[in-house]
């Protein structure tokens, strides 16, 4: 019980190191999520509204990427961006930038694969409307994405959950450097191995709180969806 009490004390004392770690975690994950959405949603829109050679193969690739082990992503990025690697000259290893890249690689397949399923269903349903009113491709995608906004938000929040809970890739590429690349999950791993269980537990509590908040938001979105989606 002492560990729990110490953990809560640490959180309530507004420890600057602790909040620096939480802030960096949120910054890295939110940036990765933002970029993943900006890239993934238009790609999903195009995939769901057009047919082209190789589409199924690419979708199968993204589906397979959803199960990609984060540690492996970290390893590949490490090889590419280490000093002896082909992109070593960029000097981004052990920086938040590479952590964002790692998270993008992990969550973008989720955003694309899940969004395509949501959008394809609505797009097929709206095909008659689009043909009747001779709607161009850009407006078709805009309409489909807009009308799918509620289920898409659920999909985006799932991506955020995945990003926040990820540890394998960012510990390799970020290096868990204090005041620089240390985030919640990597700190939990480190502090546990050091025996500093109250610090690890306090971060665990915050992480669980964020996860519960995300799930609560997903649940609220579903309730709102029923009320305002005009479905």
């Amino acid at each position, binding site marked *: 019980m002492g560990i729990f009490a110490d953990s809560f004390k640490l959180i309530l004392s507004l420890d600057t190191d602790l909040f620096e770690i939480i802030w960096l975690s949120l910054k890295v994950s939110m940036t990765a999520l933002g970029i993943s959405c900006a890239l993934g949603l238009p790609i999903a829109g195009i995939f769901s509204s057009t047919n082209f050679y190789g589409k199924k193969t690419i979708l199968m690739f993204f589906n397979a990427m959803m199960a990609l082990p984060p540690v492996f992503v970290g390893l590949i990025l490490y090889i590419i961006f280490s000093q002896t690697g082909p992109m070593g000259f960029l000097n981004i290893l052990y920086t938040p930038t590479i952590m964002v890249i790692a998270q993008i690689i992990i969550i973008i397949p989720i955003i694309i694969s899940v969004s395509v399923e949501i959008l394809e269903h*609505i797009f097929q*349903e*709206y095909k*008659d*409307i689009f*043909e*009747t*009113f001779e*709607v*161009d491709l850009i*407006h078709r995608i805009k*309409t489909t994405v807009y*009308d799918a906004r509620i289920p898409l938000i659920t999909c985006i929040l799932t991506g955020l959950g995945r990003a926040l809970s990820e540890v394998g890739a960012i510990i390799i590429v970020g290096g868990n450097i204090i005041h620089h690349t240390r985030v919640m999950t990597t700190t939990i791993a480190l502090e546990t191995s050091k025996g500093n269980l109250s610090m690890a537990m306090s971060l665990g509590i915050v992480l669980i709180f964020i996860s519960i908040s995300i799930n609560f938001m997903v649940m609220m979105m579903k309730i709102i969806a029923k009320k305002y*989606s*005009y*479905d």
Partner: protein
Amino acid sequence: MIDNRTRMLIKNLNYKVNQETFFENLSINFLPHGISVILGPNGAGKSLITKILKGIIKPEGIEVSVTINNMKPEIGYLSQNIVFLRRNVFNNLAYPMQIRGLSKKIISERVNFLLNHFDFTKSKDISARNLSKGNKQYLSFIRALVNDPKVLILDEPTSNLDMNYTKKIETYLLTKKKNTKIIMVTHDLFQAKRLADEIVFMNNGKLVEISKTKSFLKSSNKLVKKFLNGSLF
């Protein structure tokens, strides 16, 4: 105004359904004005004709000409497959104008005018997808009019409607036909008699007869007679 440069025709239509020839060298030259009603038993190809006229289905090597004064007109189309966006009634009616980039003011005026004209204002904030089957069809008819079309192609516009809505639509069509070409499919012979200036009778993908309504009702064609007697389904 519709003048002699107006053409509503399908020429040399060959079309396969499930690998089998359905339309073979079919040509239909519709009356350039008034209401043309396509009649025929189930599976005659009536709905397919409306889709081809609208341009939703584009078979190769045929000539489809829907022109008014030598120009491609705005075509309002009502399909049997009624689908609405996940939006309220007002926004479903606004959508065809929104995608054309019309101003909010114009859109609002047009939608409110139509809702008012068809006594549907009280439903404007309701989800279009939650309307009854009849109301959906009625709304779908109104939606076909939002861009002020010069040609209206309607596939069974009143099949699920009560007398009140049917009458409203028929009255509207009879007024509108003065400056709009209307082609509609119906199974209701009485409706055809009330509305049609010309009847196009089809059976099994073939044009059996095309004539003015009065002539059609006195037709000596065996299939037409059978249909009029109610023994051709």
